Every structure is written in C-alpha cells, then in structure tokens.
C-alpha cells in the first residue's frame, strides 16, 4: 500500500502532499522535511530506493523517488509494493500530468493544485493503485473538464 505521496521542489517547498494514513499535521510537515533531507543528499545516478525515514513506518517501508527537473516525486510504500512497479507508476503519473498540462512544469502544480489532485485521484485511490492506463486517466479528466465547462457556461461565467 502507498502511505504517502510527496512532491516538493529542489528547495524542499512542498507542491503536492497526499497522505493515505492519518498523521497529525505537524508530523506531516516533519515527514516532508525529513524526506526532503533524505533525498536531497543523494546524487541523481544512485538508486531510487531508500529505507524510510524514522517517521513513517520503519523498516517495512521504503521511499521510492524520482527527480524530474525541479521536482522530486516521492512515494512512501510498504513492502507489499514492487519497487520497480512504483517507479513505473511515478512515470505514469508524471506523463499524465504532462499530457493534461502540455509540458507540465512546477508552475502548473502551483497554480492548478486542485487539478493535480483530481489527476492523482484517478491514479491512486486510498493508497491503492486505481488505474495505470494513461489514456483512460486522461479520458476521465477530460470528462470532468467537460462537465465543469458546461456548468460554467450554464451560469454564464
């Protein structure tokens, strides 16, 4: 199961924080900080897995992360997930963002935080993987947008 999905930039500013297990807010902040410090000191060409920090879970948990340009995508998962599978999932998520935003960049995550969450909800639900087919995910997002548009039109906005 996925415990948490964290996206932050090279300076540790959180851009997307999603926990699938309840943590008090201050612990959430601490987890983000700790995770940032754990991945920051690692070069780009060493392995993408590391044993979880002290805050989430302990030895049964792993952090699986990928670094894209200015952003780190970190998934905290337990031992029931395949490491390479999660790496694929991060790639699927990022590629989907890229399709939805056309050349996604950090600013898109900042200004369209809500949309990013909707996209994530199509991929991961309650810590479990819901859908890995990119076309299917994009189709769902498009359907949502059509609904949204039609509503805006109906109200003359």
């Amino acid at each position: 199961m996925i415990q948490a999905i964290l996206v932050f930039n090279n300076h540790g500013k959180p851009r997307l924080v999603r926990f699938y297990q309840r943590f008090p807010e201050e612990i959430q902040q601490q987890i983000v900080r700790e995770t940032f410090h754990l991945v920051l000191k690692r070069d780009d060409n060493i392995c993408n897995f590391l044993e979880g920090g002290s805050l989430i879970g302990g030895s049964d948990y792993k952090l699986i992360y990928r670094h894209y340009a200015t952003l780190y995508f970190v998934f905290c998962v337990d031992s029931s997930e395949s490491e390479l599978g999660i790496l694929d999932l991060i790639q699927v998520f990022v590629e989907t963002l890229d399709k939805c935003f056309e050349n996604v960049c950090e600013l898109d995550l900042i200004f369209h935080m809500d949309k990013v969450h909707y996209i994530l909800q199509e991929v991961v639900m309650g810590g479990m993987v819901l859908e890995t087919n990119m076309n299917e995910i994009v189709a769902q997002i498009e359907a949502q947008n059509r609904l949204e548009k039609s509503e805006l039109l109906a109200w003359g906005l």
Partner: protein
Amino acid sequence: MPAVSKGDGMRGLAVFISDIRNCKSKEAEIKRINKELANIRSKFKGDKALDGYSKKKYVCKLLFIFLLGHDIDFGHMEAVNLLSSNKYTEKQIDSMDSVKQSAALCLLRLYKASPDLVPMGEWTARVVHLLNDQHMGVVTAAVSLITCLCKKNPDDFKTCISLAVSRLSRIVSSASTDLQDYTYYFVPAPWLSVKLLRLLQCYPPPEDAAVKGRLVECLETVLNKAQEPPKSKKVQHSNAKNAILFETISLIIHYDSEPNLLVRACNQLGQFLQHRETNLRYLALESMCTLASSEFSHEAVKTHIDTVINALKTERDVSVRQRAADLLYAMCDRSNAKQIVSEMLRYLETADYAIREEIVLKVAILAEKYAVDYSWYVDTILNLIRIAGDYVSEEVWYRVLQIVTNRDDVQGYAAKTVFEALQAPACHENMVKVGGYILGEFGNLIAGDPRSSPPVQFSLLHSKFHLCSVATRALLLSTYIKFINLFPETKATIQAVLRAGSQLRNADVELQQRAVEYLTLSSVASTDVLATVLEEMPPFPERESSILAKLKRKKGPGAGSALDDGRRDPSSNDINGGVEPTPSTVSTPSPSADLLGLRAAPPPAAPPASAGAGNLLVDVFDGPAAQPSLGPTPEEAFLSPGPEDIGPPIPEADELLNKFVCKNNGVLFENQLLQIGVKSEFRQNLGRMYLFYGNKTSVQFQNFSPTVVHPGDLQTQLAVQTKRVAAQVDGGAQVQQVLNIECLRDFLTPPLLSVRFRYGGAPQALTLKLPVTINKFFQPTEMAAQDFFQRWKQLSLPQQEAQKIFKANHPMDAEVTKAKLLGFGSALLDNVDPNPENFVGAGIIQTKALQVGCLLRLEPNAQAQMYRLTLRTSKEPVSRHLCELLAQQF
C-alpha cells in the same frame, strides 16, 4: 488540446499565489498570508452569504496556505458545506462508469479500517470472479482487494489461484500490442502482472497439476524473455520488464520447490549484480538475500561472493552497500566465514554510522556461529572493539566473556591477546572491560612470561583506571581483588590502591562499597577463604546467543528472512553447519554446535543444558538451587510414560491449578503422606520450576518417581525437561526436582504431574495438573492510551475477543485485584480507561514459534458484585483460554 486549459481557474487564487511567490522574505510571506487569512475569516464570518464560487476559492486559498506549512484552524465547515453543493464544479464527484473498480478499492479501504465490518460471505466468489473482468483496471483493483483479504481468510479466496494463473498466462504470452492501452513501453500490463504474482505469493504452489504446469510455464516464459534483446532503449521499458521479472523470482523463491527455476533465478540475479543500473543491483542483492536461505540455491548464491564483496567496497550508495552486507550475512557458512568476516571488519572501518551497530552484531554472530578455532573468534571480537568500540553493545562483549569462560582451550590465548591489545596507548573502554575481566579470571595463565608478570598486568590495567566510567572502574576493582587471590605478591600494592581516599571515600556508592568490602576481605580472610570466594567463575549455562536476540529485536518483527534462523531450518542442518547428525560429530560435537541453536544440540561436557531464565552474567548468581543437590543422579532426560499409563488427575486438580494462575510459589498439594511445594520463575518463553516433595511420615518412600506427562498435542507446544530424582525419600526428608520448561507455541491444557511411590509396601499414585498455564509466559507491555486503543481496534474480529460476566467470589478490593492482574502477568495501564474503577492491562505471550499480543479490560461493578472481563488477542483460542483462567481468580 490540453486536458486542463490554463485560463479557466480562479483568478483571485492565482493572484494570491503570485503574491506569495513574489514575496522577498519569509516575513513578507507570513505578512501576506496573515492578511489573506484575516480577509477569508471576515468573508466567512460576514453577514453576506457567499456564493459557491467564492467559497471554493477561499477554501482553495486555505489549502494552499496549509500546504506551505501554516496552521489552519478554521474553514473546515465551509469545505464540508461545499460537499453538499449540487453544482459539479463545487464538489467534483466523478461520474466514472468504472464503479466496480472504485467499489473494490473502497471495500479494501473499509476492510483495512475495520475488518469486522466486512464479514466474509457469498460476495467473495463475486470478487474472485472480477479477475475475469474485461476491463483491466477492474482486474487490477480486484487483485489488490483479494491480496489483502486472503491474508486473513485464505480459504475463502482459494479459487482465485487458478483464475490468477490463467490471467497471468494470458498476459505473459500475449504479444506486446495485444493489450493496447495497457501496454506500457512495449510491456503488456506490467502493473497487473506484478500484482498477480504478488497475489500468488500469498498461497503455496497450486495443487492442481494442470494449473501448476501452466504457472511454471509462465514463470519460465518470463525468465526467457529476460534474455531477449530489449524492444526499446528507454529505461521505462526495462523497468517494467524487470518489475515482472523480480516478482517472478520472488514467487519462485516463495515456492522454494523447483530447483531448476531457483538456480535459473539465481543466475539471472547474478547478471543483475553487475548491471549498470543501480536500482537493479539493489534489487538483485535484496532478492538474493532470500534466495540464500533456500537449500536448493544456497550454493549457487555463494558463487557470487566476490561480486558482493566488491559491491560492499565500491558501491557509492549506502542503500546498496547495506543490501550487500545483508547478503554476505545470509550467504555465510563455514566454508566462507573467515573471508566474509574479514571483509565486513574491513568495511566497518569506513561504514556509515547508521549501520555500524548492525554490522557489529552480524560480525559477532558469524564469528561465533562459524568459529572452528576459538582464537579466531577472540581475535575477531577484539578487532570489533578496536575498530568500532562505540558500537559494540553489552551483549557482544558479555558473549565473548561467556565463551572464553566456558572454553578452557582458548583462555590462555585470550589473556595474551587482551594483554597485548591493552598496550595500545588509546584503547576503547569496552576493551578495558573485556581485558579487566579476562585478566582477572585467567591472568595467571600468562603470568609466567616476565613481560606480562603480575605487577605488569596490574599496572597496565590501572593505567586505564582513571579514564574509565564508574561501571568500568567497578569492574576493575573486582579484577584487583581477584588479582590478590591469583597473585599474592600484588596484595600490598592493590591494598594501597583500595585504601586510597579516592576509592575508600569515593562519591559513588558502588565504588566506595566495593573498595571497602574488598579491602576488608583481603585483610581479614585467610588464603583458603579468599581462594573459595574468588574462585574462577563457573561455566555459563548454554543458551541461544543473546546477540542474535538483539539483532532480531533491532530488525523488528518484519525482519528479513535471512536474519531469522528459524526460516532457514530445512537447510540449516546440511548447509549452515548447525548440528550435523553424523556419528563423528555426535561423539565430538563440532565446536560451534554448542554455542548457537543449543536446544537441539546435546552438550556432552557442559553442565546440563538448563534452558535457564535470566540473562547473561546475572544468571550465575541466580540462586543456589540451580545445581540440584541430589548427588549422582543420572542426567539423561526423563522418559515419560504414555498418558495411558497414568491415572486421571485427582478431582481437586483444577482447583489446585487455579491457585497458581496468579502466583508462582506455594504448596501445590498436601495429604497425610506427602507435601508438594512449588517454586517457579518464568522469563520470556522459558521457565524453571522447582518441585519439593516432602515426606511427612517417618517411613521411607520407595520407588519414588514423579514424572511429567504431556497429554494430547501438548508435546509440540510445551517442552518440559526433568531430572530423575532419588528413588528413596527418607521419612521427614525433602527432595527437589528441577523442571526446565520451554513454551514452543500457545497451549491450552497444562502438563500433568504423576507421582508414584510405595509407602509401607502399598503402591501410591497421584496425578496433578502442573501449574504451568499460558499466562506464565506473559511479558508485561507498557503502552500509552492511544496505542492501546489502536491495538484494541486492530483486534476487533469477533473471534479475537472473549468476554465473561461473572459474580465476584471474593471481596472486591481494588488493591487485591491489581496484585492479581500483575501476578497474572500483564502490565497494568493507568489513565487508559476513562473510568478509573476499571482495570486495563496489556502483555505479550512469548512462545518460541510466535508471540501473541494480549489486551485485557476488567470492569468491576461493586453494586451488583459482578465483573465483566474482556480479552482480546490475535489468536482466538488464547483469548478464550485466558478469559477462563482469569475469570476464576476474582
């Protein structure tokens, strides 16, 4: 067209975010945020009703502020209100048609939150059937659900095996274009394949030959595909492909039954060990670690030793180095122990601080387990202390002392080596401790050499004295008094040291007391008395290495299998050199056989393998009764008669047993002839019980034979070792019998004690229930209220709970109740139950095979003179049994 057009967002929100981003300093940012918070607060509180759009905008702003790490203490209600809106954009309910998919995951979430809300039923068949669904997304969700549910209810979902195999087979054998959208970088449905392979790891190999054949074919196909040239150079392609490959290998290791596949898996992992992708090297090391514990592939894994050692030396990534160290530990056996230990020692010099202690423990264990010659073992441990003294825990240096004390062939060497090690200008305090102890015991063995004559030994130790901590100085004082016994010529010097004001009036009570007592002892006692008091330590009782226990603790319950010797069992006899059942080793057991895995090995020369309670050094002083004072009784384990040979327990046996549920000592039975007293102590899953048989008459009992019988399955649950006692008990005399007890797994019925003897020619027979109940193996566990409730909730399956409501048989006194609960073995937790009248307790039952966590709650009702007792444990029969035992106590 992008799916999200960038223009239709909320302008106010965008402006706010831009403002924040333009802030030059943290202070400016906080100022801007506070301004916005004030604004939003006034809007929410204002008279004017907000429209949905504004509410949504403000809630989004709050979310953004929250994301930046600021506390938000309002606005939750507005967010909730948005949910009840009937406009789509304000609540964003997705109208997906794939309801099944979400439903499966929703059910899973519900089950995880509270398993008893989801009783198994005929719907399980429908869930399993989802594996046949057309829509791959649905299958993926269903597999996740089944994987979770089948862990607790394997039988309900057994039918999923054949469906999963056929689904997997269809995916694996499909061309890369067949599955269209679910093909990811030329790999058909990698995610689903991985999940299916994980699901299959929840079950043993399929019993149906056809299904099994099909599965083996799949696994072979995956292994074959790994050798094909890649269809794409992209890393995503190889990732997806390898994700399936690694799961396949995990499944092969899990089945551990196909030697051919295991060796192929090992070769495949061997290739990955040298791959240029760090991720693959990491995973290969990790998988190989589990492979090393299979008897079929252990040898194959060993061939990669050089690569792994190289990884330990050259990998730049600490995660990978750690995996390499784990693998070296797992692949170690007698043939390569020296090489591996020396490599790990070398690595320790530069190892990351975070993993040093673990490496130290591993080296200590391997050195002990595979030591053929004990001078090597002593060298290794002393090297450990030299290289990483700070990380050498007490367990490690206690252990080396135990082994040196127990093996006289290594004592001289040990004394010489520590003497040399102490010469170093700066040596670690742990070295001083080990050196002090060993020289105090065996310094005489090197005293013949003028370079290590008694005065030299003493001044060497004493030169370290002032730099050491109180504990070490206390140990050194004991060494000094031992020196007075070993080397009378040092007496004057040592007495002067003890007499010095810095010792005799030391601010530390322990040091002062030792100085005073030792000084007096050395002045008043005769040489004979000194020699008796300060005699060499007796051998330590053999037991499982405490270091191993520590490593297991450190790794936690989910520890990797390689660390858990239990899982290596099938192979351990042949490969890991535990106890080799060949004739030659029975007569002269391999030197390591009696150091680890002691339960199986009969230590011929050592004292009776007392599966003693207690820990380490303390144990030596554990009481005089440890050596049964019964003269030359044969030491062979007692042969119990079969249960059919003995009579049924006497009618009051249950009542007698109940008296001992909450206490350990007392009179178990008494009649005109005989009195049986019990004294027992339990620690972890071990116990020692002394039975005292008193002859109340003036006539000798003859053919006196007390035996312990295991009715039913108890033999596999509880091991009781007894010694034969003298066959005659004189009138008025008392004999003692020692029972060593080991709880192997949870049990419900107590063992029986059958006592037979002849009194005045007439045979007497008596069968009692031995007061060994499962709660004796309780270890009290303290926990905070929050943890208690969390665990209480986790144990909420109906069968995990047992409850009893009963009338009080004794006056309801809170203090007595507390004492009884503590005697029962659980910890009493204060401030957990909102009602202070109630008692809440927690403990863990320790057995060799498993641990059972127990939570209990006792609610007295003084008015009705009733109690309600609730027990929750992870094992159904245990809950019921504990509940019954405890309910009879009040």
